[in-house]
């Protein structure tokens, strides 16, 4: 199948007074139509930066060093600003972090979405756009009469739904959701996750879902990518990654958090703190915090290697041996 989105060796650094921050480094992945990719990692690992790179919404101090991003076969960084502006919303749209604050307080929620539609589809009349807003509200579960209300009259969960409706307004083939439920309570989060999954399946949309919460990622992803310090550490089919995490960092993340399922168990700790991306460690960027690190890890950067048909890792010394077909040879802790 031809990939809808293809990211090839993408490398983007931020220029700051203190030096270059190596925020995104050598990221490659592909996403098919209808597939969802969950990107998980901690603050500052580069997950939002890669999303902003795909949306071409990088700040002025960002510089693309290497690599390409293809959307529907077209290199997005060779498109003109106007061409890409056309693609935004229609082919690719984004639900931003803290989206609740993304609505303009002085316009009704409905009119803001109508504006987005008319702006990107000049052929659409306002009448048609209003009808579409009603459909969208129905889709995300907001009563239609609420479209004439202002953002302050909405609850947090409803604002989040409105922003999702807005992102869906022009039927994009790819939606990037950056922590869309992080500020919400669990019951509301659960509803929104279920709704997004249903919508995605119904209109066969692709999605990149960004979160720091590995449990949420488990629920929404076909493919899981684990990022650390600007690098993709592990990527593969969700079932396989969760059943057999190979990278010590992935393993650590999965065992570092308590669960309400099963017996109460002790937690794995990942010692230390994430590195300064102005001077990341030599070799593997995770090596100072990894209890499986060897001299090789400290000197040579590991390349992405396939360990299963749809599962790759960047690690010299994985938790499960790549050749043994799933037999556990040791655990991170």
């Amino acid at each position, binding site marked *: 199948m031809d990939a809808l989105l293809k990211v090839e060796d993408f490398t983007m650094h931020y220029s700051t007074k203190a030096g270059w921050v190596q925020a995104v480094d050598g990221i490659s992945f592909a996403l098919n139509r209808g597939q969802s990719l969950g990107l998980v990692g901690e603050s500052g690992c580069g997950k939002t930066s890669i999303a902003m790179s795909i949306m071409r919404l990088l700040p002025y101090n960002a510089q693309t060093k290497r690599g390409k991003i293809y959307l529907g076969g077209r290199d997005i960084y060779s498109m003109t600003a106007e061409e890409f502006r056309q693609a935004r919303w229609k082919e690719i749209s984004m639900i931003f972090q803290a989206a609740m604050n993304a609505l303009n307080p002085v316009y009704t929620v409905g009119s803001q979405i109508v504006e987005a539609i008319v702006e990107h589809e000049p052929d659409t009349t306002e009448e048609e756009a209003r009808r579409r807003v009603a459909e969208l509200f129905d889709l995300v579960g907001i009563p239609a009469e609420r479209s004439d209300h202002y953002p302050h009259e909405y609850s947090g969960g409803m604002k989040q739904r409105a922003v999702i409706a807005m992102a869906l307004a022009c039927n994009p083939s790819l939606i990037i959701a950056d922590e869309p439920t992080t500020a919400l309570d*669990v019951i509301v989060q659960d509803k929104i996750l279920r709704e997004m999954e249903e919508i995605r399946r119904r209109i066969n949309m692709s999605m990149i879902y960004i979160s720091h919460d590995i449990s949420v990622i488990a629920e929404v992803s076909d493919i899981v990518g684990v990022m650390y310090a600007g690098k993709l550490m592990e990527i593969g089919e969700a079932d396989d990654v969760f059943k057999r995490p190979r990278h010590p960092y992935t393993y650590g993340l999965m065992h570092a958090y308590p669960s*309400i399922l099963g017996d109460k168990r002790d937690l794995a700790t990942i010692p230390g703190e994430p590195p300064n991306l102005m001077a990341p460690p030599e070799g593997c960027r995770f090596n100072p915090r990894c209890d499986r690190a060897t001299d090789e890890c400290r000197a040579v950067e590991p390349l992405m290697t396939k360990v299963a048909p749809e599962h790759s890792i960047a690690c010299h010394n994985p938790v499960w041996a790549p050749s043994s077909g799933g037999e556990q040879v040791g655990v991170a802790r």
Partner: protein
Amino acid sequence: MALPDSGPTNDVNDVLVRVQNLTKHYPVGRGFFHRQHAVLHAVDDISFEVARGEVLGLVGESGCGKTTTGRMLVRLTNPTSGSIVIDGTDVSSISGADMGTFRQKAQMMFQDPYESLDPRMTIFDIVSEPLNVNHIGNLEQREERVAEMLTRVGLAPPATFMFRFPHELSGGQRQRVAIARALVVNPGFVVADEPTSMLDVSIRTGVMKLLAELREEFGMSYLYITHDLAVARYLCDRIAVMYLGKIVEIAGSEEVIGNPVHPYTRALISAVPVPDPAVVRPIPNVRGGVSKPINPAPRCRFYERCPAAQKVCKESDHPELREVAPGHFAACYIL
């Protein structure tokens, strides 16, 4: 229908904190020309106890009153009515000089390590301030005590941290400073308001383990406030679930997680995402969204959202907590 004198607890022998009929009402809405304010029942007539050495988790969604409860316990907020007795001291009657003594018994840890530390104070100043204001020790002894606490919370060697400023530290390190500050006076009781929720996973685990260790080491009691049931299960002996100002269920942690009886607790537990793509969670059985307890009608607070609601739930006042199994209390008519 009144609660027994002592609220539900698993150990009546050694009660450190006893909370009875604690209530906090806030006037809201326009009150300028209108005589009658609307009243937000942030915390409404709750009673519970914390035993010596016990960790009680207070769990609920935003706006349920869990932080207000915690703040009242350490007198950062004054209750509207009700009583709080901590280690023999009636918290509401403390005044003047006694406040210092009380603060040595009860301390609070805050959620946001970026806002709870004064940016213009060094780490030494921050951690030694509770000793300063309570006139504990001389400078040398304070230095020694601060160094000891910093080492204990994992900021070692202390000399490299003492004279730095908060902005030079990471979020996890700041939260460790906040923990050291709360524990430096060796309090018997600590209200911890989501101290790990702002931290990244790999950092959070270390801080959670530290809190568990410190509790063992110093025999402290915590009221641990969190929205995260998994964290509460890991750290707490018992869990109290709050909904719109009321405690709706309270029991041992494993009992609450494994055998919840209140419809709200059940919904809350089934909404928690699980880190396993193979698990299909049931849809949480609950209607609508959280409202605010402003002038609440005299019926079960959960009535509008409850899947099991019946006539009695609407026609009677909010149900009292009653014991449904040994040590397991729930406030529901339909049990």
